[in-house]
């Protein structure tokens, strides 16, 4: 029995188990497997998911008498009881020739009882899960048993490269989990992982062919408790120097950089559905949420326009704006390998650490922010968004088959193109929120005049800057209005730059022995030696596993919204 909590309570912990797995599929499928000199074989060597059938085999310590193991049936096919794999005659090698429809860069072989694998005269020591460079359409692999009387047992052979990295072959692993949210820098860095591990032979060519974005998973802990599985994606080509392979991967949040979110107009109803719109945008960006917690209908009111920007910036801004509001109004997206989006109640842990268990405590207090200044010439903070009562109508001429274009110079809430009182079919009937060009195509065979009706949105009111009312000296931060208008929950303005004022900006940084369960934005209480305490939220955790030891550097921000 060993859990992370139990080990943390000990003066000296046992070495933490680190499990990493990298999978890069191949572009070509293996078409045929042709074994020779085998004891038994079935045709599903490509299947990695199907469990292995329990066979009453006298190899490897024999078999139990609990009725779970069946006798061999020569060349039995795979079925619901599992698959047989490829097994050599005891004490003898077994070969399999694989053939693919196109060039195979490499294959991954899962085997037991194998000393080494030979391909084209080159011997590859077996570790149980081995990547064999192929660089051809076909190849013959020969498996030699590691016991003179033992059986070589091949579970699967699949295209591509899979690496299992454990304490056995891990040299070091640096995991940086980040969700830093400071008032003047609302964007957050991506979380990343860098792994160095030992590989017994040259796979540099295989690494060169692996594309970015293949997943690298990470978990750490002890036999009875591992951390949640974190998933990262290869961000640069793997490297091999001698027998040391280096992989670098980042979390999925980087996908949000490429997802441009169009301007969003939020009315009362739109604001209620806003969290779901963000979730959809994340899905479109390719992010698979591990957890989400969204209210069905948030009781919101008001109207606002969120300018066009990347989804990542967008999320960062609204997270920052709501970070110090009561939990019910908080928006947060945390990736760090476990993409989580939540509005309202958060998935957060609460940790407690004693100062005597940490080292190198650094307390930083940046200068107090007492003012938020607008740098935009065109828009002001918290502008009131009003829909004009006057609907504008103008006439535009449509020639047969010709495109008609209209450039709106302001935001509009809707637009309709009519002819003879009938709404023309090809006009968007949803809210149009941006000053931009709309193009309509006339399907009429004669020239006609169409009535274009639209309702402009007038933006008015607002402030050039906000100043806190504490009277404390400080520095201003400058920013453009991240949102035009105001969305409220009751009396609370959700996305207002005002929320950036009057927030604690003190941070602490310290080293301790590390806990892989910790997640950015978790609550952390540091009990000081003098009896005082820091109540914080974790901004970043950088954990290093090396030489059997684990060490972490934590940066956390003081919070005045403590979650008991």
């Amino acid at each position, binding site marked *: 029995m060993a859990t992370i909590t139990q080990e943390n309570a000990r003066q000296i912990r046992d070495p933490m188990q680190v499990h990493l797995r990298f999978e890069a599929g191949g572009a070509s499928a293996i078409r045929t497997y042709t074994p020779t000199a085998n*004891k038994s074989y079935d045709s599903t060597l490509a299947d990695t998911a199907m469990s292995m059938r329990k*066979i*009453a*085999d*006298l*190899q490897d*310590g*024999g*078999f*139990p*008498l*609990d*009725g*779970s*193991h*069946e*006798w*061999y*049936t*020569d060349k*039995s096919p795979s079925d619901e*009881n599992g698959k047989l794999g490829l097994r050599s*005659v*005891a004490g003898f090698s077994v070969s399999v020739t694989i053939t693919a429809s196109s060039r195979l860069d490499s294959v991954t072989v899962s085997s037991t009882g194998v000393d080494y694998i030979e391909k084209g005269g080159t011997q590859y020591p077996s570790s149980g899960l081995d990547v064999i460079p192929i660089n051809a359409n076909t190849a013959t692999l020969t498996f030699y048993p590691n016991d003179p*009387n033992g059986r070589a047992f091949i579970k699967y052979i699949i295209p591509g490269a899979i690496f299992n990295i454990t304490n056995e072959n891990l040299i070091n692993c640096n995991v940086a989990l980040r969700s830093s949210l400071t008032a003047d820098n609302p964007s957050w860095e991506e979380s990343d992982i860098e792994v160095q591990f030992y590989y017994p032979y040259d796979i540099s060519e295989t690494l060169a062919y692996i594309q970015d974005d293949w997943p690298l998973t990470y978990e750490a802990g002890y036999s009875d408790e591992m951390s949640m599985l974190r998933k990262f994606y290869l961000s640069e080509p793997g490297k091999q120097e001698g027998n040391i392979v280096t992989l670098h991967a980042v979390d999925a949040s980087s996908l949000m950089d490429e997802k441009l979110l169009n301007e969003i107009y939020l009315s009362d109803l739109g604001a209620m559905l806003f969290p779901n719109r963000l979730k959809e945008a994340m899905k479109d960006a390719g992010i698979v949420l591990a957890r989400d917690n969204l209210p069905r209908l948030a009781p919101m009111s008001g109207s606002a326009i969120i300018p066009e920007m990347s989804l990542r910036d967008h999320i960062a801004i609204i997270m920052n704006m709501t970070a110090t509001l009561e939990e019910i109004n908080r928006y947060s997206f945390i990736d760090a390998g476990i993409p989580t989006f939540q509005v309202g109640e958060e998935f957060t842990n609460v940790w407690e650490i004693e100062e005597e268990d940490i080292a190198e405590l650094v307390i930083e207090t940046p200068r107090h922010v007492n003012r938020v200044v607008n740098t935009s010439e065109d828009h002001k903070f918290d502008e009131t968004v009003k829909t004009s009562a006057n609907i504008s109508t103008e006439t535009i001429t449509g020639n047969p088959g010709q495109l008609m274009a209209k450039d709106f110079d302001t935001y509009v809430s809707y637009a309709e193109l009519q002819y003879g009182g009938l709404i023309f079919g090809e006009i968007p009937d949803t809210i149009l929120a941006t000053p931009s060009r709309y193009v309509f195509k006339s399907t009429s065979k004669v020239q006609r005049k169409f009535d274009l009706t639209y309702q402009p949105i007038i933006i008015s009111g607002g402030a050039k800057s906000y100043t806190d009312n504490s009277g404390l000296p400080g520095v201003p931060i400058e920013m453009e209005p991240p949102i035009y208008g105001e969305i409220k929950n009751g009396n609370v303005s959700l996305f207002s730059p005002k929320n950036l004022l009057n927030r604690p900006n003190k941070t602490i940084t310290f080293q301790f022995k590390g806990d892989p369960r910790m997640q950015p934005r978790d609550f952390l209480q540091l009990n000081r030696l003098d009896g005082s305490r820091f109540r914080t939220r974790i901004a970043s955790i950088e954990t290093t596993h090396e030489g059997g030891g684990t060490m972490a550097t934590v940066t956390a921000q003081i919070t005045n919204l403590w979650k008991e």
Partner: protein
Amino acid sequence: MALWRQPVTDRVAGAMMTVVDMNRITGNVDYLAEQFGLRGMYIGRRPSKTSWVHNDYVTLQEWQELLYILDRLVDSTNLQQVIPGTEETTWQNMNNVETLTLRLRERLDIIDTYGEWPRYVDTEVWTGDDVYLGGEQEIRESPYRRIRHYCDTEIYAGDIANAGGVN
């Protein structure tokens, strides 16, 4: 004293190995080794383990020991049977192992019934042939029939082998 249990010889594909099977096989081999020993046959060894429980593992060494004793029994009783190798843990060969114990038990019953060691005739026996103890028989052309019949069971001294394999 070891007990005899009726062997199972009708396994089919997908059959599992259980503690009941192992107790029966080792128990029967132990019984045969004991009984043949009591009748003056030197087997030299009995299974080192005959009482298995649910969580026990059967190892290669234990199975090899079992097959070794079976081999001694077969050899000593002049039973023309092949001992399965340790490689062949198929359901068919598990049937073969238990069939072998059944044949040995039948041999034991023959000894008790006739008070003699059964001997094999090592060539064809013709109708009307005289068969001699020790498996050496005088071969003569049958004066009655020209159709040859195999003798399909053990022949004892003084037996007359009849046409049709019934002796």
